């Protein structure tokens, strides 16, 4: 850097200070506070009792928290397969030579991703509705009226039913990301493969997949991080019910803190959620990088 661009360190720092303070106030201070309040039995009022690590131990043992964590992981796995899998297939199809209306498909498939998750949850709760839902109307229409049921009250089916809108909303998002990676692959590679006699799916698995590996790793990381923070959709679709069968970590933290007013316990839970998410996101990423030999991006 030339001397003409030199600036005093103090003035650089002063310029960055407002943003830095604002950011710290919202991100850093709450985490510190949560760590602190986690050690207390506290319901939000003046009375606080120090209980040591008890809250943290209880969170780990709490069957509802475990169930919620399990649900987060279940949804993550289903979404990894559903979102990225279907997105890959669609992206591959869409990049074919004989596809018409490519632009139209791009715009349509991405559309759900810009919708508010609350509204998506509402729409799907109407689809699943017992009396007037599209699903039951459709089943009656095709003569399978005996399958009609109150879908979201079935605690065995509720989780897959929650996963469907979740997958649906983001297929287009991952599809577009994968397509942008496909577009950057040299088309000569595909032409050569075709000359060598590679068929459609062989091309996809043996040539396309390895070439866009790094993008897929990004997608997987995004998908895991995204599924750790599901809340809005569950809130409007099932509210965690029936019972706790479709509860997720954020939902349970919300209910304990704001409906049962166990603030100390909720704070401890926040810290556990933070750590669990960091481990899952960071762990899966480094595992993937090691496994595939990909580069750090």
């Amino acid at each position, binding site marked *: *850097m030339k001397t*003409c*661009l030199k*600036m005093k360190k103090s003035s*650089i720092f002063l*310029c*960055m200070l407002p*943003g*830095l303070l*604002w*950011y710290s*106030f*919202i*991100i850093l*201070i*709450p*985490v510190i506070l*949560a760590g602190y*309040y986690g050690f207390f039995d506290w319901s939000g009022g003046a009375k606080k009792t120090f209980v040591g690590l008890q809250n943290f131990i209880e969170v780990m043992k709490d069957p509802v928290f475990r169930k919620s964590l399990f649900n987060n992981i279940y949804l993550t796995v289903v979404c990894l397969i559903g979102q990225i899998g279907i997105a890959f297939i669609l992206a591959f*199809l*869409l990049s*074919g030579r004989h*596809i018409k209306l490519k632009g*139209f498909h791009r*715009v*349509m498939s991405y*559309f759900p991703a*810009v*919708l*508010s998750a*609350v*509204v998506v949850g*509402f729409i799907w709760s*109407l689809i699943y*509705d017992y009396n*007037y*839902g*599209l699903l039951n*109307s459709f089943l009656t229409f095709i003569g399978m009226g005996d399958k009609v049921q109150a879908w979201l009250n079935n605690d065995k089916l509720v989780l897959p039913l929650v996963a469907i809108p979740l997958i649906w909303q983001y*297929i*287009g*998002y991952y599809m577009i*990301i994968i397509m*942008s990676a496909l577009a950057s692959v040299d088309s000569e590679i595909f032409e050569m493969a075709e000359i060598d006699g590679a068929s459609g799916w062989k091309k996809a698995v043996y040539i396309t997949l390895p070439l866009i590996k790094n993008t897929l790793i*990004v997608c997987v990381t995004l998908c895991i991080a995204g599924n*750790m*923070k599901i*809340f*809005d959709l569950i*809130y409007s679709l099932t509210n965690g019910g029936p019972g706790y069968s479709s509860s997720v*970590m*954020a939902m349970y*933290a*919300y209910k304990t*803190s704001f409906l049962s007013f166990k603030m100390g316990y909720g*704070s401890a*839970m*926040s810290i556990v959620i*933070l750590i669990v998410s960091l481990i899952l*996101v960071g762990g899966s990423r480094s595992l993937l990088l090691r496994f595939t030999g990909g580069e750090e991006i």
Partner: protein
Amino acid sequence: MKKENKGSLLHWIPNALLMVFSFTCIFPAIWLFYSSLKEKAEFYHSPIALPQHPSFQHYIDILTKSNFITWLGNSIRNSGLALFFILLFGFIIGYFLSRYRFRGRNMLYGYFLLGMLVPVHALMVPMYVLFTKAGLTDNWFTLVLPYTALGLPISVFLVESYVKSMPIEVEEAAAIDGSSRYRTIFSIILPMCVPILVTIGIIQFFYVWNEFTFSLILIDSEKWMTVPVGITLFKGQFSTDFPKMMTAMLLAIFPAMLLYFIFSKQIIKGMVAGAVKG
């Protein structure tokens, strides 16, 4: 002849598959729209049939008899203010992190990186406690605080890598011509950064517009609510009037939908670029 038939069938299948998928993506919005024009009884008679006597009565009811317009105003104000601060701070911090190598620079960079890894829902309870203690809940500016802070990391990163790719000679030339550092930054570099700022703006607009959690816990009174939380109130009120609820939902997604279909190309490009780089 035989071969050609097989070929056209092979081309037909992927086209059909994609068409079905595209249709399922847009159908809910279409369903919301035509159902919103129906009467309650008509909807309950057949949820899927097209309206026989379309009427805009539900729209008039919601826009005049509920707080929807207020919520819309709040959502617009929050988005506007949050975007302004995200872009301003993001630009300044991103610029300095990119151009200057000072002690603690990498630590600061890592500090913002960490912010992207923190799952927002882990902050839900502690932020509520902090805001209550500081008396910041339930006010017109309340939600601008978390939205700005949460949008900063991605903004800082995108600006940082963008400025890095810009030739420093421009700034040197400006300095030689007598432009002060601040003037160069704001009247030369800032305009050059417009493309990346637009990308950031797009990503953050949809985030802020659709944000639900903080809006739910930090706002109590209806007059400061945003659209996503406001419409959840309708769920209780209109639980027996589906078409009305569907009207509310359509109104709620309408602004984002309109923007999306006008600027879909830029929006898709911007959001994907942000996702991949972030």
